[in-house]
């Protein structure tokens, strides 16, 4: 992956007064911009808010919306809540695992896709449900998985895309 430029983080920080209560909002903005919380920015935040690094690390590891590892450009969330689970969401997860060669909670080598399982997406009527970034896919079947993923273009590393 290319080396990211962290200078934009300064701009994000300065949108907020250096007060502790803005910690989570800042972290969310950073997550949105960089797709993860880079360590140098966490250290920058420590100096800006005057909050110990241990506290920041605690917060960053607590929330699922924040990630310390780079997330893919496309985050695939497969619902594994009760309704979706009964409609065999596991087979969808297995299919994605097979196609992208990643396990839930990890990212493809080229940084394009991340796979996550979530507990409910609130669309049980069209279960099983899958969301890629902000787009919903209902009544997903294992055979549709490949089709849907094709919409997002192939993996940059063709070999893993058999």
């Amino acid at each position, binding site marked *: 992956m290319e080396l990211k430029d962290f200078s934009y983080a300064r701009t994000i920080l300065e949108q907020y007064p250096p007060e502790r209560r803005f910690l989570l909002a800042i972290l969310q903005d950073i997550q949105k911009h960089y797709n993860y919380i880079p360590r140098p920015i966490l250290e920058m935040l420590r100096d800006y808010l005057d909050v*110990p690094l*241990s506290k920041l*690390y605690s917060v960053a590891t607590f929330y699922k919306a924040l990630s310390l590892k780079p997330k893919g450009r496309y985050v695939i969330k497969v619902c594994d809540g009760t309704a979706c689970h009964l409609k065999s969401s596991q087979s969808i997860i297995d299919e994605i695992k097979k196609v992208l060669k990643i396990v839930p909670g990890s990212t493809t080598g080229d940084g394009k896709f991340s796979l996550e399982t979530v507990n409910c997406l609130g669309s049980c009527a069209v279960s099983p449900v899958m969301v890629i970034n902000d787009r919903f896919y209902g009544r997903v079947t294992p055979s549709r998985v490949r089709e849907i993923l094709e919409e997002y273009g192939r993996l940059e590393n063709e070999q893993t895309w058999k």
Partner: protein
Amino acid sequence: MEIIIDGKKCEAQYGEYLLDIARKNGIHIPTLCHSDALPGQATCRLCIVEVVEGSRRRVVTSCVFPVTREVEVFTNSEKIRRMRKNIIRLLSARAPKNEFIQKLREEYGLLQETRFAVDEKENCILCGLCVRACEEMGIFAISTVNRGIEKKVSTPFDEASDVCIGCGACAFVCPTRAINIMDENGVRHLWNKEFQLVKCQKCGEYFTTREHQEYMKQKFGEDNNYTLCEKCRKKAAGEKMAECYRI
């Protein structure tokens, strides 16, 4: 005011915590996460008691329950024992081989939990007292990391912390001795970091780390006997006091 604990009349101040009142009157309430120096943790839940006020009965954690009215308290009723047993079973599923948990299990006649897959080497019950101690020291080197079943106490990124001074306060307050601290050949190993130990200027025993000593010097000033171990410091203070009275 006066409250009744297990049938015994006890003198209490307004706002005083139930646990403290019970202890003062020789009534035993088991605790793990309670420390007199760092009160108010209330995470281990072992110190639950039943508070009766008229027709109202409720279960509270005695370590953080301030007395504001004249109530009656039961520390060992059938209900409390039953609930406490469950708490011990849960703790025991978390840290099955820990000696302190084992002792509690024996005290309450419980068997080792076999229902869950457990980590036999786990000793931490995640009470957070160590994190509190580190914060009170003003160091902030450790914190709770992750959540749910992956929650643990650690330094940022599980690396040697650049702020840790190796004072060992975390290990000292830990009720289950879950923190790995090892002093060996003048070196202290703690939180993936190594610290040079320093000797007491009087008795010549290793007593703390260089970083801790520097920190004390910075915080309390040069003339605070920071080069002496705890024992020698106490002795020095005693001698000083004796000197005062001799004249």
